């Protein structure tokens, strides 16, 4: 792996701290805050997405190495398929006849 773009120690520490902050923030929002349930869901979902991105770039070396294009392509493809499967299913199962 090319050392030029390899995450430095600083990057790892920043990533680690950010990861911890996001995790505890999510726990705090769910357990301690007085927001509406739907609002809690929205916020922790956003946190989760940021967290996933953080992990992919800071620790899983998404944007590094000679095969980085391939990694980006199949990660994007996997996310696309995941969205199709999850949101597609929800859409198909709820449109027309709402589920109680």
């Amino acid at each position: 792996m090319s050392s030029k773009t390899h995450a430095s120690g600083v990057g790892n520490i920043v990533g680690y701290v950010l990861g911890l902050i996001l995790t505890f923030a999510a726990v705090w929002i769910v357990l301690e805050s007085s927001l509406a349930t739907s609002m809690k869901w929205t916020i922790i979902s956003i946190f989760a997405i940021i967290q996933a991105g953080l992990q992919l770039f800071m620790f899983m070396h998404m944007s590094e190495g000679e095969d980085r294009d391939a990694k980006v392509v199949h990660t994007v493809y996997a996310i696309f398929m995941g969205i199709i499967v999850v949101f597609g299913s929800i859409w198909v199962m709820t449109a027309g006849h709402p589920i109680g």
Partner: protein
Amino acid sequence: MDIKWDQILIIEEPIMFWTFIGLIVSSIGLVAGLTYFKKWGWLWREWLTSTDAKKVGIMYIVLAIVMLVRGGIDALMMKYQTAVPENTFLSSQHFNEVFSAHGTIMIFFMAMPILFGIMNLVVPLQIGARDVAFPKLNLLGFWITTAAAVLYNIAFLVGGSPDAGWTSYFPLAGKEFTPGIGNNYYYVALQISGFGSMIIAINFMVTILKMRAPGMGLFKMPMFTWTTLITCLIMIIAFPIFTIALLAGMLDRVFGSHFFTVADGGLDMMWANLFWLWAHPEVYIVVLPAFGIISEVVATFSKKRLYGYHSMVWAVIVISVFSLLVWVHHFYTMGVGPTVNSVFSITTLAIAVPTGIKLFNWLFTMRKGRIAFEQPMLWALGFIPTFLIGGVTGVMLGMASADFQYHNTLFLVAHFHYTLVGGVVYAVFAAIYYWWPKFFGFKLNHKLGNWHFWLFNVGFNLSFFPLFFLGLDGAARRMYTYSAETGFGPLYMLSFIGTLLIAAGVVFFVINMVYSSLKEKRITDRDVWGTGRTLEWLVPTPVPAYNFAVIPKVEALDEVWHRKETGKALAFDEKEIKDIHMPSHSGLPFYMFVAFFISGFLFVWEFQALAIASLALPFLGMAINSFTSYDEGYYIPAKEVIETERKGGGEQQWKAK
């Protein structure tokens, strides 16, 4: 558990009884024969534990042909039952079991294994590799698929066959409407077969991406290799969906959960949704390699470069994306509303575009070509109109508003048989005739091949074309009988006669294989057909264990053709040959076969605790694999390689084109 222990063996009906007797007699015959000729050691060493991709491929094909016969007998029984009105040959329950078994076996244990077999034989040769990336894993994939096939096939004698169709829709397939253990076979056996498919997919994806001969860029890969690569991609994406659906279905049936039940908040249509999210891509998993085969055959026997190679590749890639965006067209009638149906109608019609591109490419490849009417080309020529009929009726079915008329009628049955038989089976026969001489050193007999083709082709159309009209007249699929007043009788009878012709065609195919292995002239030409284009025609015939004595350097698409054109040296200097490293045989995959079979059987029979405990068996196999000493493989000495090369197709001449 509501198992009736006195009904474990289902042999009350005469058909079952005689099948049972037949199976026992033939098994005894097989065991006696192997013992008498002292072939056990040979079978074990040369085949069952062989990690040679070519042998694994042949074992896949043998499995698939056995399953073809089983599924074919199911088809004959169904057709015989419906040949005349009010027939009493099969009871309604038995008919349900037969059509469920026919569909499941033909898709999972015939179409997929036979294509896996062809991939194993051809892909390493086409990319200039000596083996697949993970030879032992490859053998494991075969044995896991076989464990699933055996488990599914004993169902009809031991415990009862699944009877809810190959789609096994909830809630019908759930405990609420189908008590007993029969349907468990579906969920457990297919789960196991899914492991096998996943292993194949990962193995071939890595093989194709990492093991191509130097110089072979992605856009210099032969078409069959391309379609295999994309098929693997679809498998890796789609199979996990099915795995989860099957797991949830199995938990519902065996452990009493409520994923798809009607009671207690289950969502039964979610099964249909997840099933088709996997099963529509599955259609392309079986048909894309078939497209690849047809592309190879058409180019070879038209003596022309495949027309529109790049558009062909892009069509396959586009199909692979679209294949995951059309699943709702299988259940428009669920009542999901016009918006959803319209969206899926459009995606469905859109997928006809890349498929159409492929058809035109084949036609343009043939245009002004000097077509040789050899056996493989005959099947390719039969494929095009047959598949076209399947495709066009598919577009008709794809229109959501019209689909309400066709849904669940024989029109649909005719459509998917035109695509799956007209598409996959024709291509598979083309592939078998095309590559057979490469691996066995003789061609299949031309005359018997003609009988095979014409009986099958005429029989197939006679059998399934009438179903379009029956379907439009309102004959529903999966109907075990009908009254004479419906007027369905004559067309059903015609369809039955067609099925007999198909069976006769398959008999000729089997006769051809036996006759040709005894009588046909042996050949050692490297380029068996004289017009070969891709790297498999560069190696000796029959293909030696190591495939390529020297890994070729690739300069062009259709490398062998390119070398013939440019008059470049086709063989290599014997001095270049070095000792060749080969993978050792392994008995572990066979152990995994036994382990998965036992574990699966316990799940089917709902021994909940014991079944979960038995999962230790496959894990034990994995542990043995990890913690025993690493096997270095063995070397074929250079001297032996040179001898083989001189003997098998050592003629370094190439036929003029």
